[in-house]
């Protein structure tokens, strides 16, 4: 298929996934902010609940440029939900996904376009007041629409290359997001690791699990109090938890095995390497390496993989005798 088409489809699903993850993060943040206590210590302002979505997405400095001064719930919501100047706001993501789909209508099914276009049309009807009137309802809606679009994709699309690139975008974005959430949350929560099992801790870790829809899974698997190491194990190593790093890499590795021909094995090899580390990894190793170091290593690996995917499929560079003609 066309490289540009693959690129558009890959980004279409990444943007939808990004919008969903933002909604998840903000939803949990919003709920946490309704609780009567804060984990705030001197010098830890960045760990304030409303700062976390900005830290996790790496958008803190962009936020301060736009809203100088303090972090306020209203401003964070505005910035992360409706701000067209923030290319990672939920609204911008959906618009970008819809633009990607629009320019690639031939490659996706009519039902998919119809669904995504409708998502965008409805999104446009939201303004600040409508979002603020029912914050939880809004985030729930974004999540459902994202699920719905994935469902329509799953249920209607030919299992061809286009489909693989769409799925690849979803899982690359999801893996990235889970790793970041986990990393930032650990940083934030470490000061209070001392009182494992305390009420604050319970809510904090519970919120993290909820943000990735893994709260019930945790209960089912461990039947016990929430401990940081188990959360890490669940979200990194468990292949049966759908948003874990392992589950994402299973998909990514499988997709790349499907996509790569004999001249394109490097992308598959890099994915295989990341996959093997998760597949054969143990919680003990992660503790030894240190969670932050471990996750940083993982994110470095996915970033190398992203570059390779770009180079191989999405923005290909051809041998020089062909490239010359192009430059002419």
């Amino acid at each position, binding site marked *: 298929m066309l490289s540009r088409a693959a690129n558009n489809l890959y980004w279409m699903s990444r943007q939808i996934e990004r919008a969903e993850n933002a909604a998840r993060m903000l939803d949990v943040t919003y709920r946490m902010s309704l609780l009567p206590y804060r984990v705030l210590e001197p010098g830890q302002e960045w760990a304030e609940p409303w700062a976390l979505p900005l830290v996790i997405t790496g958008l803190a400095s962009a936020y301060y440029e736009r809203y100088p001064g303090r972090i306020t719930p209203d401003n964070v919501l505005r910035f992360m939900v409706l701000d067209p100047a923030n290319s990672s706001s939920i609204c911008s993501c959906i618009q970008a996904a819809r633009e990607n789909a629009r320019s690639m209508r031939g490659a996706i099914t009519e039902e998919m376009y119809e669904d995504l276009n409708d998502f965008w049309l409805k999104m446009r009807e939201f303004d600040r007041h409508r979002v603020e009137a029912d914050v939880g309802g809004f985030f729930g809606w974004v999540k459902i629409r994202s699920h719905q679009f994935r469902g329509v994709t799953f249920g209607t699309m030919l299992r061809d290359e286009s489909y693989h690139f769409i799925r690849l975008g979803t899982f690359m974005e999801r893996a990235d997001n889970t790793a970041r959430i986990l990393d930032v949350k650990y940083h934030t929560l470490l000061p209070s690791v001392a009182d494992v099992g305390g009420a604050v801790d319970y809510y904090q870790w519970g919120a993290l699990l909820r943000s990735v829809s893994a709260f019930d899974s945790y209960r089912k698997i461990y039947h016990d109090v929430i401990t940081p190491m188990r959360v890490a194990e669940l979200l990194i190593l468990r292949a049966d938890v759908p948003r874990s790093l392992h589950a994402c890499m299973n998909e990514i590795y499988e997709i790349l095995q499907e996509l790569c021909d004999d001249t394109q094995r490097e992308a598959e090899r890099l994915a295989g390497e990341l996959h093997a580390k998760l597949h054969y990894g143990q919680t003990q190793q992660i503790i030894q390496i240190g969670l932050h170091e471990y996750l940083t290593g993982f994110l470095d690996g996915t970033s190398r993989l992203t570059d390779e995917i770009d180079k191989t499929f999405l923005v290909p560079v051809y041998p020089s005798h*062909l490239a010359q003609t192009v430059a002419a």
Partner: protein
Amino acid sequence: MLAAVRPASARCYDEMYDAAGIPYAHYGAYAEWLSGKPRDFMLQKQREADTLYARLGITFAVYGDEGGVERSIPFDIIPRIMPAATWKKISDGCCQRVRALNAFLSDIYHRQEIVRAGIVPERQILGNSLFRREMQGVDVPGGVYVHVAGVDIVMVDAETFYVLEDNLRTPSGVSYMLENRRMMMRLFPDLFARIAVAPVDHYADVLLDNLRAVAPTGSADPVVVVLTPGSYNSAYFEHAFLAQQMGVELVEGQDLFVSDDTVFMRTTHGPKRVDVIYRRIDDDFLDPLAFRRDSILGVPGLFAAYRAGHVTLANAIGTGVADDKSTYTYAPEMIRFYLGEEPILQNVPTWQLGRPDDLKYVLDHLPELVVKEVQGSGGYGMLVGPAAGKSEIRAYRERILEHSANFIAQPTLALSTCPTFVQSGIAPRHVDLRPYVLSGKSVTLVPGALTRVALREGSLVVNSSQGGGTKDTWILES
């Protein structure tokens, strides 16, 4: 295109009801069905259609309109119905016309027999800015220049049709023909059980079949692509739609490159050769090395590959010279000259303002006439005399006098009307018809066309950019 208005008092031919208000036989079954439907039912269906079109994202862009980049084209839920015999005449007439126009293009880019025979003056061709000298002596596969033609036709009574213009460059609108049918089947499935309507859905198959038939020799399994200027083009929806329906890639200029006079597309598995390009980009923008240097939509080296016979362009380069509104006047003569036949469809009588006698007559009768720019399209820049005010006519006269050869004039025709669902209920509105003629393997049409309707009362301008809408066109199975 346009048509003109007759004074409101004059009666126009209505395609559904006769003078006594009785529906014609071919509308019988529909009229009976319609009579049982309350207004609320139709209103709800109209709303449903509007919502569906918005959700399906069937849109066009209006140039010069800053407000909305995309808009849905208004769709009218009352079909236009045409008996099989009427259609046969239109269909035969269109095929005949396109065969002659193809022969004309092949001729003027080679021996120019029609000029030698004194039928078309040399300046009409060589002096035409749409004539492409670069195409002289270039042989195109199968001798086919116009693979897709849109022929605009109006009716003034049940027997009389006129060709208003030929669209031979990159005619658009066929996606509406197809989507309108789908919409009608979605809204009124029961009607299709009562009335035998000829299907149009195989259009894309026929198109693909024709495109593959004109691939350069030697391609056993030709690769066809649709080339679009991109998602900001007004007809982008259609480009994507056709690519999807044909199951071929929709490419932009940046997706293609030329190496050794061969065209390739950039794919996820390396370069892949392209044999046939159904291009929806104007000649000027196709190749910055051959035509406009500032074009970023095109593909450098494409024209060289084309000349070398390594890729087919549909339509061919340089077809504009034949659909120009002043060349139009020669179409009946082309049919006689190349085919030895009498034209089945007539032209609208046309005055060429480059001719002093014609110019004088037209200037004396501006309030009665329709005046158009020779190379204009989309209904822009024309004068509808009967609908224009004095100052508008005065201003237009100045423009004519400046470059009179750039204009033609036609009488104001009493265009037929079709019942249309509007604010006040069901009322007659003027319509035209654009069938799409496909050439390659053979010259054919699917039994259907785009009907455009002027939604404003009394208006004769049916262009979507000028407040026109569309209707589904039903050709009855005989």
